């Protein structure tokens, strides 16, 4: 979604649906990112259901849209098989 699509109020949907997705790339907020271990995954879909940003798509296996994953770790916490691990992304300068 290119940001140029939104110039003013009338380009927006009436409420903040999609605005979050298309205007606020919550991926910028991340301190740590989910790392997926496919071999442990039982395809139960819990991660997809609990992600507060709806940024996990459920194909055969879950897929992450890192533009919007804010690194909250809810998916990792709720995964019954520890198939998701959080990895620190902070860069020390």
């Amino acid at each position: 979604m290119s940001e140029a699509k939104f110039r003013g109020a009338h380009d927006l949907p009436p409420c903040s649906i999609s605005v979050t997705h298309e205007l606020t790339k919550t991926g910028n907020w991340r301190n740590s990112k989910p790392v997926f271990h496919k071999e442990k995954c039982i395809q139960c879909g819990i991660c997809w259901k609990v992600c507060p940003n709806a940024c996990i798509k459920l194909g055969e296996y879950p897929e992450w849209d890192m533009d919007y994953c804010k690194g909250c770790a809810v998916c990792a916490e709720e995964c019954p098989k520890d198939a998701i691990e959080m990895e620190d992304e902070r860069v020390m300068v």
Partner: protein
Amino acid sequence: MSTVKVITGNHAASFGARDSRAEVIAAYPITPQTQIVELLSEFCADGTLKAKFIKVESEHSAMAACIGASAAGVRAYTATSAHGLALMHEMLHWAANGRHPVVMANVNRAMGPPWSIWTDQNDSLAQRDTGWLQFYCESNQEVYDTTMIAFKACEQVLLPGMLVLDAFILSHTYEPVEMPDQELIDEFLPPFDPPYKMDLDDARAFGALTTPEWYMELRYLIQEAHEKALVTVREVEKEFGETFGRYYGTLELYRCDDAEEVILIAGSTASTAKDAVDIMRKGGRKIGLARIKLFRPFPNEEIRDIASRVNKMIVIDRNVSFGNQGIFFNEIKASLYSAKNRPPVYGFVAGLGGRDMKIDDITGIVEQADTCDIEEILWWGVKL
């Protein structure tokens, strides 16, 4: 075939929701509203209404459930009163800001303490700035009709709407109510089909965080929607009138054509005041009445128009904004600031906590306005 039933204002609201084919009803009981949802729960239980009735633990939850249903693309309805409405306050913002056209009946009941179950308008008017449309009804028939008018208008502008009826004077009083043929209603009010809804195949977060860069634009869209709603409500009222033969309008004018002074009032007291107008006319006063049906959006132009034709305006408020004055009084004067013709406006606070408003009270108020000072805040009938 239309049918006529002799029913209370509460049941007029229930039948209005039934015939509007509400699909989700979530509610918590509170006097004097309970009968509305009681009858609706019966309709759901016996299959008369194909709707899901959700019992909840509070009014806050009732509105939250309605918002969820509306976000999923379903026509949602609830009813409440006074403290119940106050408890919903947060969710009222959520419904309007999320652009969910939930429709709700609010039975006007005075706020406590002291506990009161009788009518006044402070509960609904305290929700003025939540972004809801507000319709003040005068009769049980109007309660029934306004339910479908509200659904239709609200769904077009994607804003929630509150129809307001007086405790006991309407809620528990029986009047004949005509209910049109369901097929005609269905033609008038097609199924709810919002442009955005929760969709598992296109999962999105609703109402999620928006930075300062875009928040203000979303608020501007709500203001625009309210401005549009004024036109939409008029169009829907007109269509309703053409289809079913009853027309109310956003500011109803009664005997105003040659009026030199006008009473402004909302709710069922308007009926009493119309009788008072008839009596005063017989006595030679050229007086009329303007009934505020729609409070949000506010019919500013119509207020300015009637102001341009009279020498005096008398506002009767069954409410008060403490530390200032009657709320309609305040709003009407704000409308008039940019008007060419600004007649003197007198404001009376009256009938709080369900104190009776009889014909003599209305004529007495009009007579007192002849002699009183425009700066005074007048509390009609208060014992001092």
